[in-house]
C-alpha cells in the first residue's frame, strides 16, 4: 500500500479491491460437495469433502475410516502364519504381493532364507498379482473419465491372470500362499505354458488400452496437465510406486532395494515419466504392466529346481528384534515394521501401505481443479480402500 507511486502496484491494488468488491456484492458462498462415501469414483468408501466455488475446488479433504478394520491390532493377537490371512485383504487386488514383505520381514528376523525355487515362484506370483492389479486400474481409469468399455476389457483379461494365480494358490483374491521359509506348495504341471499364453494376451490387452485410451485425444485432453505433482513434493509426501515414477523420480524398490526376490536375475527396466500429471501416471502404469509380463516370461524360463521350503520349525517363534521390509507392490511401497518379542505372534506390526501416503497428497494437489478433475486425479493416484484404511 505504501508504494502507491509504483504504477504496477497501483494496478494490483485496484484489481484486488475490485475482486473484493465483486466478492462482497455477489456473495457467492462456497458449496460443499461430498464426493462419497457412496460414489462410483471412490471405489470403496472414501469420502472427499470438497468446497466448491462454482465447479472449482477450493479445499478438498479426504475423509476415510469407513472401512478401518484395525489390522495392526488384529495382527497382535495372531500368530505369524495367521497374520497372512489378514494381510491378504489389505490391497485385495494384488493380495499375493501383500504377503511377501511381511513374510520377508519375519524371515529376516528368523535369519532364514527361502530356497531359490521358492523365491522365483514368489517373484512370478508377485508380478502376476501386479498385472492383475494394474490391469484393473488401466480399465478403471477409463470408467473414471467416462469410457465404458475399457473396464470390461480389464475384467475380461484380468480374469485370465487370476485364474493362473488360482491354479497355483487355490485363491483368486486371497492366495495365502506364502509361508515363512518358502511356499505352501509347488506349481502344478502345465502351468508354465498356460501362464506364457496368458502373458501374450495381457500384452494384447495393453495394446488395446493404448489404442482405446492413451492414444485417444479426449483422454489426453482430460489427463494431461491435470494434477501435476512435482518430484520434491512427491518425496515429501512419501508417494510411492508409479505415482512417484510418473513425477520423474527413478526409484523402484524392486531394483534399488531388492529384499532377495528374483528381480535381479532378469532383464527389465524401470519406467519413468517427467510430467507428473495424471496422464503420466497412467502411462507409467501401462508400461509397468507390459514390463511385468516380460518379467514373468523371463522368470518362467528359468525357474530353478529344488525344494520350496527351507527348514523351519513346526511351531514358528520369531526371535526378538525389529525389522522393516518393504517391497514395490502394485500400488507402491508396502512395508511391514515388525516388533517381535520372541513370541508366537508379533508384538506390534506397523503396516506402511502405499495408498495411505498416496492419498494424503489429495488436499495439496486438488486445490483449484474442477470437479471432473477430482475424479481424474483420484483415479490416476490409484488407491485401494483397504490399502488406505487397513
Amino acid at each position, binding site marked *: 500500500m505504501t508504494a502507491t507511486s509504483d504504477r504496477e502496484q497501483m494496478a494490483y491494488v485496484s484489481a484486488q479491491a475490485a475482486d473484493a468488491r465483486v466478492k462482497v456484492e455477489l456473495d457467492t458462498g462456497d458449496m460443499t460437495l461430498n464426493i462419497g462415501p457412496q460414489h462410483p469414483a471412490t471405489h470403496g468408501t472414501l469420502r472427499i469433502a470438497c468446497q466448491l466455488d462454482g465447479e472449482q475446488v477450493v479445499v478438498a479433504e479426504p475423509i476415510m475410516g469407513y472401512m478401518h478394520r484395525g489390522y495392526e491390532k488384529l495382527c497382535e493377537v*495372531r500368530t505369524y502364519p*495367521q497374520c497372512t490371512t489378514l494381510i491378504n485383504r489389505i490391497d485385495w487386488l494384488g493380495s499375493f504381493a501383500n504377503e511377501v514383505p511381511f513374510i520377508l520381514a519375519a524371515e529376516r528376523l528368523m535369519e532364514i532364507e527361502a530356497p531359490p525355487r521358492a523365491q522365483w515362484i514368489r517373484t512370478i506370483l508377485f508380478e502376476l498379482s501386479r498385472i492383475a492389479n494394474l490391469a484393473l486400474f488401466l480399465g478403471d481409469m477409463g470408467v473414471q473419465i467416462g469410457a465404458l468399455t475399457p473396464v470390461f476389457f480389464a475384467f475380461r483379461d484380468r480374469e485370465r491372470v487370476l485364474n493362473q494365480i488360482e491354479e497355483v494358490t487355490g485363491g483368486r483374491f486371497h492366495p495365502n500362499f506364502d509361508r515363512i521359509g518358502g511356499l505352501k506348495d509347488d506349481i502344478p504341471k502345465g502351468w508354465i505354458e498356460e501362464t506364457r499364453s496368458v502373458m501374450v494376451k495381457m500384452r494384447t490387452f495393453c495394446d488395446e488400452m493404448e489404442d482405446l485410451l492413451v492414444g485417444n485425444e479426449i483422454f489426453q485432453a482430460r489427463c494431461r496437465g491435470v494434477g501435476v505433482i512435482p518430484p520434491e513434493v512427491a518425496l515429501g509426501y512419501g508417494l510411492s510406486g508409479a505415482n512417484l515414477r510418473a513425477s520423474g523420480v527413478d526409484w523402484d524398490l524392486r531394483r534399488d532395494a531388492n529384499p532377495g526376490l528374483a528381480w535381479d536375475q532378469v532383464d527389465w527396466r524401470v519406467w519413468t515419466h517427467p510430467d507428473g500429471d495424471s496422464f503420466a501416471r497412467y502411462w507409467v502404469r501401462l508400461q509397468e504392466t507390459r514390463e511385468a509380463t516380460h518379467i514373468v516370461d523371463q522368470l518362467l524360463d528359468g525357474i530353478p*529346481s529344488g525344494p520350496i521350503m527351507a527348514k523351519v520349525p513346526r511351531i514358528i517363534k520369531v526371535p526378538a528384534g525389529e525389522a522393516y521390509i518393504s517391497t514395490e507392490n502394485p500400488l507402491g511401497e508396502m512395508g511391514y515394521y515388525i516388533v517381535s518379542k520372541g513370541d508366537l505372534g508379533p508384538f506390534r506390526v506397523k503396516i506402511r501401505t502405499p495408498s495411505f501416503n498416496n492419498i494424503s497428497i489429495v488436499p495439496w494437489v486438488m486445490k483449484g481443479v474442477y470437479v471432473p478433475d477430482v475424479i481424474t486425479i483420484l483415479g490416476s493416484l490409484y488407491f485401494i480402500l483397504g490399502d488406505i484404511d487397513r
Partner: protein
Amino acid sequence: MPRLPGLIKGLGVTARTAGRTLFPKRGWKTLIPAPQKGAVTVQYPHEKEAPPDRARGVIALHEENCTACMLCSRQCPDWCIYIEGHKVKAPPRREGGKPRTVNMLDRFDIDYALCMYCGICVEVCPFDALFWTPEYEYSEPRIADLLHDKDRLGEWMETVPDFLDYETGSEQKVRKVPR
C-alpha cells in the same frame, strides 16, 4: 483438440471386439454369428465354470482320519471350527496287546460365515482329515445355516479332486486323497 487417428483407433478396437464376439468362428463359418461362443462370460445357471482343482471352495472332512486332536480348531485365526469328542477304548491292534484309548469325534462344525478360507486348518492337520474341494454351490439364505456339521463336510469328500502333478524341477511329493 481431437485429431483423427487416436479417435479412429479407439473405434477400431471396439468394433474389432464386437466382431470377434459375434463371429468367433473361422473360415466360411465366420458368417454364422455365434456370440455364445465368442463371449468370455459364462452363463452361470446354464453352464458352470469349473474352478481349478486347487481352488479353495469348501473344506471337506474325511471323518475316519480325524482324531479330534484340536489342532485345526486352535490354529484357526477366526475361531470358526468347533470340535467336540470323547475317548473310547478300542481293541488292540494285534493279539495279546492291551486295549487302546482312541478319540471319537462327536462334533466337527465349521462356521462358513466366519471362515476366511485361509486353509490353515487343512495345512496343520497331521492326519490328512481335511481337504479343499472346488465345490462352491453351498450358499444359504440365512447366515446361521452356514454352520455345517461333520456329515455335510463328509459329503463334500466325494468332490475332492486328486492332487495335481507338479511341474518339472519340483521336489514335492504328490499326496494321495484317501477315498
